[in-house]
């Protein structure tokens, strides 16, 4: 399924010291990249709680980009390694849930790597475009009580693939 008009929505988590600055640098240098990524600034990639990724994916994002300082260059010494470990386990869990692990990407970008940030962002948007929409946001629209609407809980009656009853 490739939808040519599909514009992915991507949430990017950036670290205050490196990748957020890399994004700033890409701006200062007027580099161009795809507008599909919306960034959140955290103090460190180590702040990345997997909940955030799950929230983004379940709330309508088609992909999540996590960025931090290169290994060995973390502003907080070694916290990006912790982000790396979580990222690895999270991807495994997502795969178990049938979600392409490629929808979550980890990029190391130093404050000087504006070009890398721009290039990785554009590349990621293209990767997600190829994967197609994730399709979670819609299902969670709530009615006034904060519950899933009736029409979403589409009941199964007769899936066409099911065999017909054969009279004896």
């Amino acid at each position, binding site marked *: 399924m490739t939808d040519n008009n599909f514009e992915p929505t991507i949430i990017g988590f950036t670290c205050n010291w490196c990748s957020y600055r890399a994004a700033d640098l890409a701006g200062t240098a007027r580099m161009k990249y795809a507008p599909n990524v919306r960034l959140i600034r955290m103090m460190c990639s*180590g702040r990345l709680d997997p909940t955030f990724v799950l929230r983004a994916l379940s709330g*309508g994002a088609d992909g999540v980009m996590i960025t931090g300082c290169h290994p060995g260059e973390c502003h907080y010494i070694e916290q990006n390694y912790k982000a790396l470990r979580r990222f690895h386990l999270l991807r495994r869990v997502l795969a178990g849930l049938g979600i392409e692990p490629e929808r979550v990407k980890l990029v190391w970008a130093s404050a000087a790597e504006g070009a890398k940030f721009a290039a990785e962002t554009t590349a990621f948007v293209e990767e997600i475009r190829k994967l197609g929409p994730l399709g979670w946001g819609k299902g969670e629209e709530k009615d006034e009580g904060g519950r899933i609407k009736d029409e979403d809980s589409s009941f199964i009656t007769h899936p066409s693939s099911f065999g017909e009853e054969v009279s004896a």
Partner: protein
Amino acid sequence: MTEKIGVYVCHCGTNIAGTVDVKGVAEWAAEHLKHRGVVIGREYKFMCSSLGQELVENDIKELGLTRVIVAACSPHLHEKTFRTACKNAGLNPYLCEMVSIREQVSWVHTDKVAATEKSKAVISGGVERVLHNEALEPIRVPIHADTLVVGGGIAGIQAALEIADAGYHVCLVEREPSIGGHMAQFDKTFPTLDCAACILTPKMVEIGSHPNITLLTWSEVEKVDGFVGNFTATIRKKASYVNTDSCTGCGICWEKCPKKVVDDVFEAGLGVRKAIYRPFAQAVPKYPVMDVENCTYFKNGKCKACQLFCPTEPNSINFEQKDEILEVQAGNIILATGYDLFDTTRIPQYGYGKLPNVFTSIEFERMCNAAGPTEGKVVLRDMKTTPKSVVVVHCVGSRDENYNKYCSSICCMQSLKFAHLVMERTGAEVYNCYIDIRTPAKDYEEFYKRVLEEGGHFIRGKVAEITDAARLPEEEGKLIVQVEDTLIGKQRRIPVDMVILSAGIEPRQDAKEVGKLFGIACGASGWYTEKHPKLDPVATMTEGIYIAGCVQGPKDIPASVAQGAAAAARVLGKIQQGVIALEPIKASINETQCSGCRICNGLCPFNAISFIEDDKVSSINPALCQGCGTCVAACPAGAISGTGFSDAQIIAQIDGLLLRNLEEARV
């Protein structure tokens, strides 16, 4: 209470307005985020101008805004500006958030529609986040006026003297029996060729006698507790077996000591000392230390010659002395533990250790030193023959993927110094084999010129190998240095009597462990990481811990001294302030919810998290916490929360960015 939020969208001239429909965005926010508490959406040409700031201030006062969003450039540029404006208008500055629609929208996108839509999403995210912001106050901690300096090389000496002269107390801890560091080993120092001892000794003496300095030599820091303003260091003062109250440093003990030991540290293996020794004549302090590994008495229970001959009353030799553990309080710490020399045996093709007349740079320095093992004579390993020809090899272990990738930055100048000294003392022919000659400081190029004028030969080429296998008669009995002379494109074999390896410099072997003690990190090459490589080279990421000299990276004496002084200035600034305000971006643990699982305990690089055994809960020391948030994200019980970066804030921002807030009213 219902929040009143003001949204301000900046044109930045045409910087933003050129790509984003600023007016449309401001109106959209006012209308579509009304149910989220936005009471006003304004646009303005230059938000950071004084008029722009006044706009915000007036709205706070007149409309009673309780939260502010400024959509403009990067928060790294103007967050402070707008937070200050809020503060001036009586709003807690932490209730103001900036979102970037310039660096991250208008400058990087071209499609006006997409850029405008993204701006709306970004603002929506900001609005949701700011709804969860809390009013915060900076944390204030008092600063202890004493300073701990670790490492008594030239950098540490300089730092200690600056602070002590300013009237504050310093404790200087040095691992070796004497301060002085590497500089004490040299004879002359480039580029002016002053005698190292002549300029260093006065400073060492000053340290020894300064009323504001406690000097702890033969000592090491074992533990550091506390945080900026209030560190407690546990220091082990190793037993020297000499009672410094009575010892006069007369030297009779080491004269009489029968046990000779090759001095691998100060004399770089070229000279000998005794089992009881003072590393060099000008050592500070003047007292000897006993090397129990080699002392005959400690080995087989007999000797005690030193005690027998010691003339003082009471006798200064005390075989019963024990290590002492001291605790020192300090408000700030300066680390100046210097460097190690690259181990040249790691490059077997240079023959060091196998070919006797291949010397290291430090060996050569000792040889040139009038107080050294050859009394300043430049001779071969036989300690008598004067060399007639010498090759100085540059970049040994530096600029090489196989060893250290970086340039050691001192060895070019040091090699030029060696060329000069060899010519001055022996008249020998000297060849410098180099890749590039790097002389980027005042009077350095002039020094290079001088060596050229003195007749030094320069061969551009990294030495491939050094051998004693002669092929031609003129090579017999010589060291042959094989190198491509790249300027003529020929492989050359240069037969000489002596080779000096300008070994590079490396982080101290224990730099990583020592760094951990103080909560600071090493970069990829192993040097300590500074807060900012250009704008804050002596501070570290850990408040209150400073670095100076070669711990921060390879550098020469002038630069080490400059950093020592700079670190001292930073510390003095802190002491003068009396109290320090820390950003209130901190993590804290809810004790009721904490299960004491200890998952978080290993995660904080600043040792901010500790486990309280009695209550079986973990706890965070806010002064040590740097606010990275790693533990917040890690606690499986959800017991850790962070001010300024709470789960609620980030989750809300995610929802806002995804525009999930538009459909329903949840205020």
